[in-house]
Structure formats: structure tokens, C-alpha cells
């Protein structure tokens, strides 16, 4: 069993840690989308559509980063 543990590459550990962190980041990106929804429902100041769009772009970017880490690392 000790052999198995020692054989695990350090990069695999880094990959798992990166995936966990990016998973947490995904939740954060979702919170930003939720926050924008809260802001735009409270105030109508203009450019609500554009701001919501950027919130979703950020979320999509976070999903892509997670997938990139999963596939590339």
C-alpha cells in the first residue's frame, strides 16, 4: 500500500487540487450571476442585458477552465 502511495505522481495531486479549487471557483462564478440578478432586479440603471451577459460569459469561462484542467493536466 505504501508503494502505491509513493507511486502517485506529485502532478496528479496538483491536478486534483486544481480541480477542487476550480470547482469552488465555479460556485463563485454562479454567485456572481446570482448577484447580478439581485442587482438588476433591485435597480434599473441601464445596460442590464450587457451586464448579465458578462456574468454568464464569466461563468462559461469558469466551466471551460475546469474542463481544460480536467483534460489537459
Amino acid at each position: 500500500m505504501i508503494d502505491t502511495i509513493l507511486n502517485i505522481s506529485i502532478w496528479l495531486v496538483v491536478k486534483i487540487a486544481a480541480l477542487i479549487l476550480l470547482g469552488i471557483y465555479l460556485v463563485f462564478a454562479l454567485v456572481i450571476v446570482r448577484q447580478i440578478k439581485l442587482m438588476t432586479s433591485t435597480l434599473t440603471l441601464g445596460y442590464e442585458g450587457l451586464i448579465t451577459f458578462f456574468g454568464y460569459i464569466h461563468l462559461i469561462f469558469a466551466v471551460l477552465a475546469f474542463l481544460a484542467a480536467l483534460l489537459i493536466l
Partner: protein
Amino acid sequence: MPEIFISDTPDLEKKEDKNLEKAERKIKNEDHDPHHHHGKFSSFRLYPRDIDFETRSDDEKVVLLLRQHFIVNLKWIFIAILMSLVPGTVSMFGILSSLPSGFEIVINIVWYLVTMAYVLENFLSWYFNVYIVTNERIIDVDFNNLIYKRISDATLDNIQDITYNMGGVVRTVFNYGDILIQTASEVSEFDFLAVPEPDKVVKIINDLVPQVK
């Protein structure tokens, strides 16, 4: 049957409306500043027609929409520009070249992602943290810590004292400062921080207050 008592409320309402119209004319006439363009990103919007907020009543009219002076954004814009230059600089010096293939790409993607979030958060915080003056009350809208929202308001007739300060070179040059409003309502103090032309804001509120008292 003779009318013994006729309520004079409609007359009072008419008088109040006339007073408010008078105040509006006065405020608009005094605003000759060509810098008061009414773009949506402006920090000082007088009688904006296209804005609305959750708790607005039907007959409530927005007189002034304020947010922090655009100059306060320069710090985070500068940091964001520096952040976006980091991956290029790092790859130029080959700092990440010793990592296994793929790691450099992912690190760069994550770096840009964090930069994007930084810009988005700072912009949202500036754009949506606004101060609103209506013909009935003053409102302070605060969004802090991602999903925390606080809306405080005080009716104009509860305003007791307004002061403003503009200390410092930058604030004097760019004409912005803090306005402190003491009220008799539940929230006893309103701080309009780093708003442009605080002297004009104070004057506008002072013009509105007598109309509702």
C-alpha cells in the same frame, strides 16, 4: 343638503405639487454645467428618466442619481491592466517552462479568469452602489460581500443637517467629496461617499427639503 365640511386635502396636494414643480424648475435652471452629460455611466445624473428602483412608489420621481466619481475606479483599472500583462511577462522569462506541458496553459487561463472576476466585481460594485434623491426621500443602495444588499432611506422631511467635505488635492481637482446627512429616521446618518460636485448635491437637497416640510 348644505355642505358642512369640505376637505381641503385636494388643494393641499395641488399646492405641494406646484411647490415640487417650482423646485424642479429651479434645480434645472441652476444646472448649466456642460459636464452634466446624462450618460448611463455618469456619476451625477439630474432627473434621469430611464432609471427605476424596487421600492419606488408610483408618484415618486427620481431627482438625482449619484454614484462615486469615476476617478475612484482608476486604481482597480490600473491593477487589472497590470494583471493582464503578467502571463506575457512570465512566459517571456520562461518561469513556467519547467512545469509539465499543459500546466502553463491552464495557469494562464485561470489567471485571466481571476482578472476577469476582479474587473467584474469592481465594476459591479461601482455601478450598482448608488445614492438616489427623489422628490420624497433619499436612498442609499449598498451591495457588499457578493449577495448582501442593504437599502436605507429617509424621507426628506426627516433630514436635519447636511454637510460635505472635499479634503485633499485629488478631490479638489476633480471636484468630488463626501456628503454627510443627519436624519431623524431609523438610519440616523447617510454618507454619500466620493460623489461628484457635493456642493451642488447639497444645494439640490436643500431646495427639495422645504417643499415637503
